[in-house]
């Protein structure tokens, strides 16, 4: 009992741990929902590239206005939209295909961001921007995370049917009078909002891990969209809390511990998921081979 207390309860008597926990809960709620939609829309890699491309906007906003949340958000949004629109434009006007244009632009943006951040006074800022530290979130960061969470949950509550239709069957959505472009841009903005909110906790490099890994893990278990969303949120919660504890006890970087914990859950699911895991697949194939042999007899 006392070891359990030592492992799970005692750490959260510290205020920085409580803040970290609250931050994890808020980011898990919105990240789980958003990540699921990104995975279903096959935007996982694009989301990751987008996360990297936010850096110059956020860094510039930070240099000019300090830790002003509105400025950070607008800076990130601007950089993100510039990358998206820029790659669309490049692919239309030149021979370069859209994925290559996007890949090229985001890496240039990321490098610009790193250059800007490295011009800052302290090394601590540099590490924070790239990898974050969930155990060092400030009350202001928590406000931003709360706002992002409320906006995301609200959007999903109001537009869940449009989001589902646009994700599952955009053609049908459009044929019934839906506005696909609006839904798409709204999801993009939500992604930027949540990435900026997760910046302090996870950094630009790891933030998307908190969104995507729970979603792909849930994808291996669920056959209904509602279940998928709930499971993704649950996995994100469990993974981030366990990750924080791991970081506290073993003294590892917090973002990395969270992503590694979530990664472990994903790989376990990929192996053991009853319908869509590797073991289930191999078993089904063996059963099939055996039945073919039987009918051949």
């Amino acid at each position, binding site marked *: 009992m006392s070891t359990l207390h030592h492992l799970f309860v005692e750490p959260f008597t510290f205020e920085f741990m409580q803040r970290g926990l609250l931050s994890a809960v808020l980011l898990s709620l919105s990240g789980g929902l958003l990540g699921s939609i990104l995975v279903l829309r096959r935007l996982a890699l694009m989301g990751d590239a987008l996360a990297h491309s936010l850096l110059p906007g956020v860094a510039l906003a930070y240099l000019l206005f300090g830790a002003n949340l509105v400025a950070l958000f607008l800076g990130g949004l601007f950089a993100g939209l510039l990358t998206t629109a820029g790659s669309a434009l490049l692919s239309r006007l030149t021979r370069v295909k859209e994925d290559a244009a996007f890949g090229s632009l985001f890496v240039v943006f990321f490098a610009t961001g790193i250059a800007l951040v490295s011009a800052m006074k302290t090394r601590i800022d540099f590490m924070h921007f790239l990898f974050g530290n969930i155990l060092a979130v400030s009350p202001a960061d928590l406000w931003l995370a709360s706002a992002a969470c409320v906006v995301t949950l609200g959007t999903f509550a*109001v537009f869940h049917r449009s989001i589902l239709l646009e994700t599952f*069957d955009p*053609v*049908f959505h459009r*044929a*019934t*009078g839906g506005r696909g472009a609006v839904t798409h841009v709204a999801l993009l903005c939500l992604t930027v909002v949540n990435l900026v909110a997760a910046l302090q906790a996870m950094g630009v490099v790891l933030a998307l891990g908190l969104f995507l890994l729970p979603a792909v893990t849930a994808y291996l278990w669920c056959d*209904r*969209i509602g*279940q998928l969303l709930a499971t993704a949120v649950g996995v994100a919660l469990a993974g981030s809390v366990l990750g924080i504890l791991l970081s506290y006890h073993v003294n590892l970087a917090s973002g990395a511990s969270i992503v590694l914990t979530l990664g472990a859950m994903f790989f376990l699911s990929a192996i053991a998921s009853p319908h869509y895991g590797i073991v289930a697949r191999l078993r089904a194939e063996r059963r099939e081979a055996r039945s073919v042999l039987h009918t051949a007899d």
Partner: protein
Amino acid sequence: MDHAAHNILRFRDVTVRYGATTALEHVTVSIPCGSLTAIVGPNGAGKSTLLRSILGWHPLETGEIRIGDTHTEHLLPRLAYLPQRQTIDWDFPITVRGVVEQGRYPALRWYQRMGSEDQNRVSRALAELDISELADRQIRMLSGGQQQRVFLARALAQGADIFLLDEPFAGLDLHATDELAHILHAWEAQGRTVLAVVHDLALARAHFRQAVLLNRQLIASGPIEAALTPANIDAAYRGGRCVHDDPLRLTRTAHFPE
């Protein structure tokens, strides 16, 4: 057709352009109410464009498309569009019932939940297409014909009376093709209007009553045998850009030496 059928959909002088390319050129044609009509023609003939322009997706350079006195894009609830099968992600975490429920979504405001009337319509659509027992299955766990029926059920649940099908026979095996043709005939008997893009002339001949033969311009329309005469087909497919659309090739294989 010996009686003068009431025309439900009327295209008058419809021209659609994408940049420099012309997809449809001054097409004037009427679709009789309750008819089972195939849109046929070579690749790039504007078949899908014709279907989608009904939904108001393409700005019309000239002309108009009407249901009665109203432009079609104002009557979206009466129109059900069935997308091509290959555009669907069959691994999507959704059940058969979940897909059919989507047919009710356009009628719901954002704060409304599915009511009992909506649920009844969904159940009726599932029952009519004989997939009630499959309602809780994930959509990958179905045969090709069953998958097609799920989307037909969604169209029914929508409460539409005009059905726009984009290549409904693509990728279906022989059994599923017969099944779909059977369903479409039943719908025709119930007075539903079906307009389908059909790539295969033989399929169109076998299962449809009316045809619209296109090659950017209207080549012919009317009862299927009258519209798909060898002369008309030759006119539509001559200079076609794709070898497998050349109807002559079918003739050659038929006379292949044994």
